[in-house]
């Protein structure tokens, strides 16, 4: 109902930034002892900071809910101020109040007027002694409609009482004041970083979340909530409906009936039959008329009743179209299905987590025991596909034992607690401190209980300290908080700021593929990661760490599926000189090339498509028809080699087409992975057996036959021409100008960028690579791919706006790996998280 973040204090006015009407601005009436700092007030003596208006506006609301929460981030100047010294008060004078949060020595004290307490709010709810500290503290007083009042300090309940009665007798004429009683005489000194008043109670979980989110969270959340419901409907439903039902025939390339529904400008323009979309006028919008009568889509499934209802609401509500082009790639997944989905650590992440946390290398055992992760949506770290089977559970149990057996348990425990007593206090302290490190964030009381319980079980079986800690660690390693990246998902259905610890984990798994280090966890503890400048410093530090480079190679490896090469076994009749080592060398070529372009030269990511350099073993050089240099993998300049240069000319990618160098497979790779295009699967009745080449019939000829076929051409035209420029590379990436039948091979062609109507011609593969490298669509696609890898999930329509911002931010600073990762981790895709409300779950 009222929120003060002290970010925009001007002319002694502290604006209420809650966005709730009526606003209740505060005025600094006596500024002698008040200094306005960036984001907080410092009070050094007696002052008057109070509202000009009375609190009638929100008192009425509070009477309805009969609930109240006072929240403050404060840094008391000393532990002696008493009175209680008023931090936040809604009152008239020292003995008449609606509510007051105050400091009484080393205790916080809250008085609340109800129909059962006095007009002075007595009896009050106090914290225990020694709770107040002269450092930034989060203090929340929350009372629910049943009268249960709780006082939280730094996310923990420190006081709880029944404050019975209701708020009917609140006085509308009182004023809100900070740092002193209205009328003076109860001065409080210190810093106030945030004050918020809510007309609802907070649960202990809420209070903990607010604490972990830090003092800046509330304002950030508010800043986000400026959306137009009609625009939101377009982005979350309508664009997807159009992509699913309409764009197959009404995109720029096909444009049946002269209608292109993929773009704002063309969708609102007149089509052959009249006006397609007229905002607010359903009966005059052809789109609605045809869809409602099921005349459209032609020969396809009609829209469902819910889809029609959404379309109707959208057009009637003004048909807001927020972005220029609808990209069908965005609508392959439902937002709800993938955006909130707990992600298991991959085998590599698990191994790295163990290495960092315990300094134990289990890479060999993990590879042998843990089932391998499988690819989904182009990556092996895709959350929804990181499932768990019996083999995982067995492996985690075995690995936990192996890890603990290799660990000097006592020495490890000493890092967190010097004493080796099995007493309750000692073990709880150890579990709390050790758990924060092992489980990458603070433990709550229940978790401490659970792990502490293991030590009592061990003790009652006659075990000692070392054995108890060993079993606690085994349990922690098998805990969901170790195996998964756990975050709070339930909420009010809105976006929320992630907590400092959640952000620390996101940063470290994105940048390093492993857990946060101590500086990062400490920064989370101190709320530093919510500060843009400090966050930037941490990310810079992390990107300079060698782990960032190592983990980035995992991106290229997953994206191009380089592990596929481990199992490459071409037909020996066609390729008698093949050796599995060449496949390994192809992997190395791409990985070293990536390191060179991205890390050593720090070039834009799109340069991966046409950088004139590569890394070859002597065998691979020979395989490519180049003169070997030296006896091991060496760097080759390719300016003088017209046929090579860029990822698409490397064996690791070219082998995607199989022995026959399939244009379909290669073309689909370019379409999906570089241009982010979509195409539907072939109808079930179509014979997809590859047509073999023969004298007088090249792969290109076969492809062109397909393009001319009415049944196939519509879709194949979208991707096969993308591979024309690669025809001279055989199935294993060897360059030749004639095939085995002596047919002359071509390398010219045309590409059609998804979303565009115009084809662009190229003469040879070099031109194709340059075209791709310069293509805005390719650059965007690389942003999308890296973002998907970072988030560990496919991107959906709800992400589109933020990914576009990430792309623009990164491109404006050079479009390098560094700028892209920086843009991603400082974006709201990483700093905020969607939540799922219980009610929405029930509806589904």
């Amino acid at each position: 109902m009222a929120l003060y973040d002290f970010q925009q204090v001007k002319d002694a006015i502290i604006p209420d930034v809650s966005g709730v009407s009526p606003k209740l601005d505060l005025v600094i009436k006596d500024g002698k002892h008040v200094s306005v700092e960036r984001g907080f007030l410092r009070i050094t003596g007696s002052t008057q900071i109070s509202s000009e208006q009375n609190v009638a506006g929100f008192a009425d609301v509070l009477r309805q809910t009969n609930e109240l929460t006072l929240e403050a981030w404060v840094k008391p100047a000393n532990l002696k101020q008493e009175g209680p010294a008023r931090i936040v008060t809604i009152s008239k004078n020292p003995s008449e109040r609606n509510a007051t949060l105050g400091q009484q020595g080393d205790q916080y004290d809250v008085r609340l007027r109800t129909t059962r307490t006095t007009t002075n709010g007595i009896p009050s709810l106090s914290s225990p002694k020694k709770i107040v500290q002269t450092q930034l503290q989060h203090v929340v007083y929350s009372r629910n409609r049943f009268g249960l009042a709780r006082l939280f300090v730094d996310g923990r309940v420190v006081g709880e009482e029944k404050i019975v009665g209701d708020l009917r007798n609140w006085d509308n004429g009182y004023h809100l004041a900070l740092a002193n009683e209205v009328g003076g005489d109860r001065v409080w000194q210190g810093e106030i970083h945030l004050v918020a008043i809510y007309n609802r109670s907070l649960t202990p979980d809420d209070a903990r979340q607010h604490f972990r989110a830090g003092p800046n969270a509330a304002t950030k959340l508010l800043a986000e909530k400026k959306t137009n419901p009609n625009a939101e409907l377009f982005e979350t439903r309508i664009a997807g409906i159009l992509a699913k039902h309409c764009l197959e025939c009404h995109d720029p390339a096909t444009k049946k009936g002269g209608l292109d529904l993929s773009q704002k400008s063309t969708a609102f323009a007149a089509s052959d039959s009249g006006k397609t979309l007229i905002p607010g006028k359903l009966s005059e919008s052809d789109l609605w008329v045809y869809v409602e009568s099921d005349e459209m889509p032609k020969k396809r499934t009609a829209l469902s009743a819910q889809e029609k209802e959404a379309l109707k609401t959208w057009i009637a509500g003004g048909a807001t179209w927020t972005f220029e082009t609808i990209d069908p790639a965005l609508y392959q997944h439902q937002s709800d299905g993938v955006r909130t989905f707990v992600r298991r650590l991959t085998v590599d992440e698990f191994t790295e987590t163990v290495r960092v946390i315990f300094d134990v290398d289990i890479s060999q055992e993990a590879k042998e025991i843990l089932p391998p992760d499988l690819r989904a949506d182009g990556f092996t770290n895709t959350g929804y596909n990181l499932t768990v089977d019996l083999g995982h559970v067995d492996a985690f149990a075995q690995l936990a034992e192996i890890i603990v057996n290799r660990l000097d348990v006592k020495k490890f425990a000493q890092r967190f607690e010097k004493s080796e007593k099995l007493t309750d206090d000692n073990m709880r302290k150890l579990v709390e401190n050790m758990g924060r490190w092992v489980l990458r964030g603070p433990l709550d009381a229940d978790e401490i209980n659970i792990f502490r319980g293991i030590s009592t079980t061990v003790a009652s079986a006659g075990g000692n300290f070392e054995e108890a800690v060993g079993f606690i660690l085994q349990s922690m390693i098998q805990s969901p908080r170790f195996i998964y990246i756990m975050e709070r998902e339930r909420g009010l259905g809105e976006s929320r700021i992630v907590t400092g610890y959640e952000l620390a984990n996101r940063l470290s798994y994105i940048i390093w593929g492993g857990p946060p280090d101590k500086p990062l966890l400490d920064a989370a503890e101190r709320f530093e990661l919510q500060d843009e400048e400090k966050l930037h410093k941490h990310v810079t530090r992390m990107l300079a760490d060698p782990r960032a480079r190592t983990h980035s190679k995992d991106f290229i490896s997953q994206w191009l599926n380089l592990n596929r090469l481990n199992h490459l076994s071409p037909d020996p009749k066609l390729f008698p000189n093949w050796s599995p080592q060449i496949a390994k060398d192809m992997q190395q070529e791409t990985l070293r090339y990536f390191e060179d372009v991205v890390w050593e030269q720090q070039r834009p990511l799109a340069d991966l498509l046409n950088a004139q350099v590569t890394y070859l073993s002597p065998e691979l050089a020979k395989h490519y028809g180049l003169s070997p240099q030296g006896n091991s993998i060496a760097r080759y300049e390719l300016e003088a080699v017209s046929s090579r240069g860029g990822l698409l000319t490397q064996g690791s990618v070219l082998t995607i087409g199989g022995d026959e160098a399939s244009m379909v497979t290669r073309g689909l790779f370019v379409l999906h992975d570089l241009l982010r295009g979509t195409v539907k699967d072939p109808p079930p009745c179509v014979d997809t057996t590859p047509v073999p080449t023969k004298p007088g019939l090249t792969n290109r000829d076969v492809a062109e036959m397909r393009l001319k076929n009415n049944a196939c051409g519509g879709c194949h035209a979208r991707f096969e021409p993308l591979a024309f420029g690669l025809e001279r590379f055989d199935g294993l990436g060897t360059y030749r100008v004639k095939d085995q039948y002596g047919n002359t091979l071509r390398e010219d062609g045309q590409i059609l960028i998804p979303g565009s109507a115009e084809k662009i011609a190229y003469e040879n593969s070099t031109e194709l690579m340059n075209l791709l490298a310069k293509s805005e669509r390719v650059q965007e696609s690389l942003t999308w791919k890296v973002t998907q890898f970072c988030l560990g999930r496919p991107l959906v329509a709800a992400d589109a706006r933020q990914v576009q911002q990430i792309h623009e931010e990164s491109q404006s600073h050079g479009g390098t790996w560094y700028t892209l990762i920086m843009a991603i981790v400082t974006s709201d895709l990483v700093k905020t998280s969607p939540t799922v409300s219980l009610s929405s779950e029930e509806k589904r």
Partner: protein
Amino acid sequence: MTQPRISRRTVLKGLGGITIGLPLLEEMMLTHGWGAPVAEVPTRAFNVFFGLGIPAPLQEEGYDGVLEPLKPLKEKLLIMRHVDQVRCDEKGINAHYDGASGAFTATPPNGEAKSGGASIDQLIRRTVYQDGLPKGMVSTLVAGTFFRRSRVSRYVHSYNPDGSVAATMQERPRDLFDRVFGTIGSSADGDLRKERLKRSVLDTVVDQYKFYAGQRSPLGKNSRAKIATHLERIREFEQRAYEMKDKHPLAPKAPKPSELAHGGQADPGGEGIDMRLGDLVEEWRLMADLYALAVQIDRVRFGALTFLAAGERLRITGDYEYGGRKVFTFNDEKQLGKSGSAGCSHEWWHQFRENKKNEQLRAHIHMKMREVAYFLSLLDQPEMKEANGRTVLENSLITVSTESGDGRHSDPKRELSGIFHAITGANNRFKTGKILNVKAEGIDVYNSMLGSFGVKDRLGPNDREHQQVDKIRA
């Protein structure tokens, strides 16, 4: 002893939905490796502990007061009043813990996980079975239904002479079942303990997954479903690793997993937990049934059984009935008007005043006596009769005790004096059918009991002159 018959009633009573088929058990009796049947009455000693104690003045009321539930067994019990454990007091240490450590050992605790010396049962075992117990027998069975666990002595009541626990505590019916019927692992005996601890770790892992898959989870629906799948896999793993391996072909069906809090969740930092009386009694009686069954089929002759820990903190609710009459309606939190630890039944002991009614305190103690009597009566069923015509209850040494004789924490001497003790006749070694004011130290009472078994070792310091307490001897 003669081949014991197994009472269908003994097995099924209190088991709730647990299916333990009688024919299977009868067949089991004939199999080898389950403790060989013997013709003579074996020597047995068990310690039965109940938490929080009985204030000495209430003991004075005899069977007319809180001891009423023991009355049906009075001819087979010797109630000992005025037994002091003051020597167990350790300054600065929790009085509940001191008293609980003293029970059955008469020595103060030695650190957080050890007692000051052996417990009665273990000294008798070492004397009587110097060459070990018959093959296939569980050497010592320690079990209990309890929740507070900050120190081992609060709930473990069988100790080796060096003060270490005599056996691993079995706190879930399923654990006790496995221990008795030996379903876990094929590993060598030395690894069994480790196997059980590993299983205990797995239990805590299950608890964590249950939280994330449950209604209190911070996760959304999709993620909860994923965690629920993981949980299913863990249970499958658990079953394969621990339940299907080396399972005796004739073993009955295992009890269902416990629904009550165990491990760390049972003791959230001394804050106490909510407990419905019915749930508590159901689990305890299942434990008691299984323990009695283990005794009856001669799988175990020594050990301890705990009904609620020393200083237990529970917020109990529910109607308490005895003998067809409603004794009291428990609702500690409401009746105390406080939440958290201050709303636990423990507070009634703090509030004990001789000149007051102490209504709630009496009801709680009465309930504890009902449950202790439940276990004792299981050993006194007709089918528990042995070669000498007496029941297992009469032939065994069963020592019932607790931690304090006053719960006010205002005077350690008073608190550790007058601690309730009851013993059985131990095959006519001790008097029964009496309530004696023994007016002796626990150490002397215990040593006198040991003497009756021919045990040469003594509890407590060697340089102390032991006082024989002959009045308890038959």
